[in-house]
């Protein structure tokens, strides 16, 4: 089923956006700063997102992700820096600007007494050219729950409703804050397909997530934030540059575990086959691994210990609570 406008036909993508950012930039951030008390939450952050792009912002809790995203959404003021979202400053963005963005936030418990269908339907009324609410409910897989009160949804169903409410206004730019938290693997895969479909239709998406597999699967580009700045950015497959992607060859020789990083693993293997192979011609415990996005990420944000310590903070997802 196609989700179509109930009030107007979509415009061709080639038409220039009046007042929009030059060069098809959906989000433009330069030198963004935000301080809470003594904590510099965002410390000169730069970020660009092109129209139609999916960018994942990664980083440990407290790195400044949520603060940055909330500034872009117009929820927070900033102390300094330049911010343009769909060509406008979020601080002064009016209702017409809000009609062009969609926000899927964390931790919502609202509208408990409405049914799923009612919730999506009335939210659609706020927008000038909404999608068909029933089709949106269908797209997030909640049609069987359409007549059920929101209060009785499971956590994952609730998140899918949040997504439906975020996209029913057909936003040009969609903010997804840890959207698949609480999803089972099947629902998560369905959700990924939905995100790809949104992108195929031209929606720009800014995604924050702790799920590195999700970032690798969905994002055209990832930006890693640490201590309020972007420390690395690029396509998920080449984040951190070639040095971060050097394969690791590990094996056991004379009962001792050995490993070696090399850009020429095949050459190393033939050398090992000649020198380290046992009587049967096999190299014990041989493995050749390439660092995953998660390995690269953990390296960038200061190793697994640091990330784990951040995750254990009692503040949980309210990383920017000041």
């Amino acid at each position, binding site marked *: *089923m*196609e*989700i*179509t*406008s109930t009030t*107007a036909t*979509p*415009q*061709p*993508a*080639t*038409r220039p*956006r*009046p*007042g929009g950012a030059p060069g098809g930039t959906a989000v433009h951030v330069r030198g963004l700063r935000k301080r809470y008390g003594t904590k510099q939450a965002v410390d000169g952050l730069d970020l660009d997102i092109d129209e139609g792009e999916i960018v994942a912002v990664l980083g440990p809790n407290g790195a400044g992700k949520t603060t940055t995203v909330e500034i872009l*959404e*117009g*929820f927070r003021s900033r102390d300094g820096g330049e911010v343009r979202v769909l060509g406008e400053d979020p601080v002064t963005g009016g*209702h*017409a600007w809000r*009609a*062009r963005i969609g*926000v899927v*936030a964390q931790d*919502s418990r*609202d*509208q*408990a*007494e*409405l049914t799923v269908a*009612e919730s999506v339907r009335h*939210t659609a*009324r*706020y*927008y*000038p050219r909404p*999608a068909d609410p029933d*089709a*949106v409910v*269908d*797209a997030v*897989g909640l049609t069987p729950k359409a007549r059920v*009160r929101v209060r009785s949804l499971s956590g994952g169903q609730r998140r899918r409703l949040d997504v439906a*409410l975020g*996209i029913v*206004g*057909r936003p*040009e730019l969609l903010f997804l804050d840890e959207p698949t938290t609480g999803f089972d693997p099947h629902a998560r895969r369905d959700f990924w*397909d*939905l995100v*790809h*479909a*949104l992108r195929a*239709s*031209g*929606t720009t998406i800014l995604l924050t997530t702790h799920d590195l597999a999700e970032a690798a699967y969905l994002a055209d580009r990832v930006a890693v934030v640490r201590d309020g700045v972007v420390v690395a950015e690029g396509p998920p497959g080449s984040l951190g540059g070639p040095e971060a992607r050097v394969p690791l060859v590990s094996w056991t020789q004379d009962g001792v575990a050995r490993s070696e990083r090399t850009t020429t693993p095949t050459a190393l293997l033939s050398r090992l086959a000649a020198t380290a192979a046992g009587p049967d011609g096999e190299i014990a415990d041989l493995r050749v691994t390439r660092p995953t996005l998660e390995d690269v990420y953990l390296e960038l944000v200061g190793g697994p210990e640091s990330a784990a310590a951040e995750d254990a903070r009692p503040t949980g997802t*309210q990383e*920017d*609570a*000041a």
Partner: protein
Amino acid sequence: MSAVQQATVAAPPRGRRPDRLPGVGTLTLVRAGVELRQFLRERDAVIFVFAYPVIMLAIFSTVFSDAQQGAEGVEVDFARYFLPGMIATGIMLTGFQSIAISIAVERDDGTLRRLRATPLPATAYFGGKVVLTLATSVAQTVTLLAVAALVYDVPMPTDAADWATFAWVFTLGTATGAVCGVGFSSVPRSGRSASAVVTPVVLILQFISGVFFAFYALPGWMQTVASVFPLKWLAQGMRSVFLPPELEILEVGESWQLGAVAAVLTAWLVVGLVLGVRSFRWRRRDDG
């Protein structure tokens, strides 16, 4: 979610600003529909708001069924004396208490944050609350009047002037209560504490404002304190409508003081508006 749907979801119209946004009037109606629907589905709130004044009227009128209220030879049935206070209390419940609690809860549960991210104007959000408040206040007052008239034989005013007074006191009181509710909604620190913070304020005002006890029988200092707040004046305005004119001498100034009723309620309306506009937040306090 089928493969067919996934292929073509939500093409955002690109390359131009959105069409004309829905009007504030339309959105107020949309919000009013949502407010009414949610209210009616919270059965405990419905029962509390509608039944509380009626039950209180029933209890007091039954306990004191033989008693007369008054002094110096001017007396009326207890139920008749009690009714105006219950109407005032009902207006306070649906206006001030319901709004203060519901906004505090909606700030806490993310309703306001979500609405803030949509093109919905704040005016339409409050418009929806106003419609809900009006609807519940009218329904509740009609119930109260019906029970008083049919069960306790309280005579209803026959004079058009009395009903005119009733209309403006009711409207001004409802508006003042609602606006003060918006202002007070920022006081509770969380949705869970909202009832605990708001209810005592309402209860104390009820006791000192002559809702449960005859106002003329209260100590002077208590009358003075109550005179600062709108509930006393709301109840007094309602007494002028439902009590016989000879009871006017029991009032503090031996007068219904309708001018002062209008002045104090209007003053609180303005104070509530200013406080409401200045203190209203879309976000929780701990959200920074």
